[in-house]
């Protein structure tokens, strides 16, 4: 690990003043410290923002909106009873990510900003446009079976690995940031960037900007009864998604009044498709409808390598997540959150 200076500012202003072009904000460190070890990220200054006052709160507005401080730990957010009740798929997505230990450390801000898990990015000896612009992309002709099928470019085919961001995208979250130029808000849809020719610009955050909070509008809770996160994995737990989906329905009687659908691990950002959601609005839930919506969600999907299978899987995952949402959010968090095996199965086998 390269040597660095460490600063623990006492206030947001101090933090912003401490920023320099070689600096990195330090949240729980579960991603940053890891990448500092591999050498993929080499900050000169590490600015520890975990103790900034006021950023560790979960606050419900009078209108029912939610403001989550950037330093709230993933575990604390998932375990907040109101969050679990009003925004079940947010809690489910958080609990489906990483491990109990990591969730205790990981912050909301850090989760939003976590880097891709593309191995070539993590490995400084490999060519990677995202890490070192202009060097090329070794994944393009390398091991890319788990990389992007949507929104990728010749320059980069990486995916965003966050589970948490997928329901955030579905629920129209807003990211509050503050930088040298002051405060601003970024809609989650604009927060993560598709690679284009500049994969190194992974988010809309400008240099020196710090995430202060994530807000969810009051309307997000309208989906509470019918919201699920589903994550397909190669092992039952402690694994990144092959593909994931957040699906939420606002039901009026037995019709879908409004639908939300976002896919994870298929692109450099959580993938949300308005057309798919529009297809669902006003309809009665049914498997064929969900299949059509899932198909629409994958419009434009194309393999970036040895991964056309992910397109099929994403379609199936989206359709299933919608079906699960239609069934309703479970009264209690499933033992295996977001897992196909999380449903109460019973041991009875019908031959």
């Amino acid at each position: 690990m390269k040597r660095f200076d460490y600063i623990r500012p006492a206030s947001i202003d101090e933090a912003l003043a401490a920023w320099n072009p070689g600096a990195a904000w330090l949240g729980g460190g579960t991603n940053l410290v890891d990448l500092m070890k591999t050498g993929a990220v080499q900050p000169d200054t590490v600015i520890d923002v975990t103790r900034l006052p006021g950023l560790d709160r979960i606050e419900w507005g009078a209108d029912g909106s939610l403001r989550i401080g950037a330093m709230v730990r993933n575990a604390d957010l998932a375990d907040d009873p109101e969050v679990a009740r009003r925004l079940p798929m947010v809690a489910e997505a958080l609990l489906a990510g990483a491990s109990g230990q990591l969730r205790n450390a990981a912050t909301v801000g850090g989760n939003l900003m976590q880097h891709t898990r593309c191995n070539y990015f993590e490995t400084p000896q490999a060519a990677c446009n995202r890490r070192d612009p202009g060097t090329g992309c070794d994944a393009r002709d390398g091991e890319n079976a788990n990389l992007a099928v949507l929104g990728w470019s010749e320059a980069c085919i990486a995916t965003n690995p966050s589970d948490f961001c997928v329901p955030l995208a579905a629920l129209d979250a807003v990211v509050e940031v503050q930088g040298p130029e002051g405060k601003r808000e970024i809609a989650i849809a604009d927060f993560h960037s598709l690679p284009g020719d500049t994969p190194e610009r992974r988010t809309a955050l400008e240099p020196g900007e710090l995430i202060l909070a994530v807000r969810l509008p009051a309307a997000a809770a309208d989906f509470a009864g019918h919201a699920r996160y589903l994550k397909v994995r190669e092992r039952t737990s402690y694994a990144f998604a092959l593909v994931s989906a957040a699906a939420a329905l606002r039901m009026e009687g037995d019709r879908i009044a409004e639908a939300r659908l976002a896919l994870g691990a298929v692109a450099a950002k959580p993938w949300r498709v308005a057309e798919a959601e529009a297809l669902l609005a006003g309809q009665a839930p049914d498997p064929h409808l969900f299949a059509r919506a899932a198909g629409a969600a994958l419009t434009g999907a194309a393999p970036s390598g040895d991964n056309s299978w992910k397109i099929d899987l994403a379609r199936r995952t989206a359709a299933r997540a919608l079906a699960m949402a239609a069934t309703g959010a479970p009264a209690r968090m499933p033992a295996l959150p977001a897992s196909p095996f999380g449903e109460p199965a019973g041991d009875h086998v019908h031959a």
Partner: protein
Amino acid sequence: MPDTLVQPVRFGSNSGQPVTRRDGIAKVTGAATFAADNQPAGLLHAVYLPATIARGRVTHLDVAAAEAHPGVVQIITPADRPPLDGDPSAKPTPFSFRIDVLQDDTVRYAGQPIALVLGETLEAATEGARLLAPRYAAETARTALDDETPFAFEPAGFGLPAGAEHGDVAGGHAAATQAVDVTYETAAQYHNAMETHAVVAAWEGDHLTLDMPSQALAMSCGAYAYFFGIPAENVTLRSPYLGGGFGSKAFTTGPQVLAILAARMTGRPVKLSLTRQQMFGPVGHRGATRQRLRLGADVAAALTVIDHESIAATSSFDDFVEPAANASQGLYSAQALRAAHRAVRLDVGTPGPMRAPGEASGSAALECAMDELAQEAGIDPLEFRLRNYAETEPGTGKPYSSKALRQCYDQAAERFGWAGRPLAPRQMRDEAGLLVGWGMGTALFPAPMFAAEARATLRPDGSALVETSAADMGQGAWTALAQIAADSLGLPLDRVEFRAGHSDLPDAGVAGGSGHTATAGTALHAAGGDVIRQLGEIAAADEASPLHGAGNAGFVARDGRLCVAGDEERSEAFADILARAGGAALIGNGSGSRAPEDAERWAMNAHGAVFAEVKVDPDLCQMRVTRLVGAFAAGRIINPKLAESQLMGGMIWGTSFALHEEARHDRHTGRIVNADFAGYHIAVNADVQGLEVITVHEDDPHVNALGIKGVGEIGVTGTVGAIANAIWHATGTRVRRFPIRVRDLLEAGSPVG
């Protein structure tokens, strides 16, 4: 000495008891000291730089940048590496492989050490290694089985002869009315013991002290003595605890030799601990295989032929070839049998034995092919295996020393509830709509013995000290071997002090091949017997002893007393006998190995049957093993609790083999792109449920005096096939590669819903 006959102690009071691990408290309090936990004064930290290409040359290292980093003490590259006394390409001991110790600038596999950095701190050494920023002249790496032409190679397995042909193979093919011709692939797997390979090396003159996890202490000392030009007795190796071995800690590795060299060079103790990433390269692995199985059966579903060909990967510079096809030699009776091996040289580290070498990969393919043929023949897979039950070892024609496989099938099938399983696939669902499938496989692992020595000292107070350099890598040697020793001495366990894990102790041989308890146990048993024999001689000759003159009847040792066989009322405490004899301790020695004539005469294997239930999401194709029931017959079980844990561990390895483990190489550089625990999956806790183990008792008078076979590896075999067969049964999709991934079921077009 006919008048001091000692009755063999076959069923003492300790053996057979589920004694709790004797090292338990040390392990749950953090007091158990693993190699890298040692911290001698003046320690230097060593970190090596691993190659990120698999084939080519290192053309540049930025030594100046690394040297300039504060805390970096020294950098060793091929250009300035001090000489070794031994040739790194030599094989100084029976089980050794050529090592990479910076002998030149060529790169033969990714992960090969290309420089060593010494630092005052771990942080400095780590950063020094990074700053070396190597440049390479790289060539396209060969890392896939198709990248090179196979050549014939007959590897030696544990116990079974090299690949061979028996009976009329062509005739067997011709006679078949049902046949399958299928090819299975198994991926390269890495041992990945939780404790990475590590060493703390310290020199004092020409005496070398090593804290290092080792499955073979004496052998390792010999190897280090060779490389450093000192007598073997100048090497002290301490290995009280190993954080797992699975075969990979039985060998001398390049990084460890480099650390020892650095210690000699600097005159300071040196610690080197591999990173997780570095475990993928210079410390062995299970080579990838491609196995073609052609099986034929007649109308009665009797096998006419088992024709098993395996191609396995090895390195470009050494030979270890998975004896995978040998798995077909021990199991099913067939008119004709062929097991043949070929190898492919790739730019990978040299493979080595990894838990159930040969058998694990071979069994995976064989058990699936058997299932395919049963399906073809339209009969139940268990019934099919019973019809082809071998009464003598198919590959050799030898009788089995014991074989309770039928009981294993019966008991496991019963416990699992196998009866009533629909023959056709895709017939069962659970309440949540998940596909449910049931599969089974037969488990087999040879019961080899190596050579071991042990010493028992009966102290004047009647307690004992038993010593052997045995390694406990988790299998429970500290406990099971002490139980055997206590029985051989007729003492309760708490009167026996057991010392192991140190090279000064009598050589316990290799902890591997599932033969350690049998081998070291036999040595301990003999050493205890030797003490009791001596004690009997003293007592029988001692007029003051109640045992005087009873030598003809023979003695048994019980609870610290020597008793007359058949008249146990007539006895005397050990301490009393010794006190009158002058109060000196008695020392007995023993050795353990198998008589060649027994090995010649009998086929000796442990057997088992594994039944698996899997659930598969019909749309998403995610899989989960929901039940695993295994019954195993492995001779006498010394400690059922520990044996059960071993067998369960092996079965979970089977789960990982079937569903998770696979090293993936970048096709250009040959670098393993998932060389960490996030990318290289092994089963986690949530992957394990419904696990049950049954041990079926076997009285085996031939394997060794104690009747022990071994349980360390057999759990892996059988299980892999059982899971794959269950996945087929759940889905109707036959995946012929391991691990079985979500995409494999998807791409096979598993229908939706």
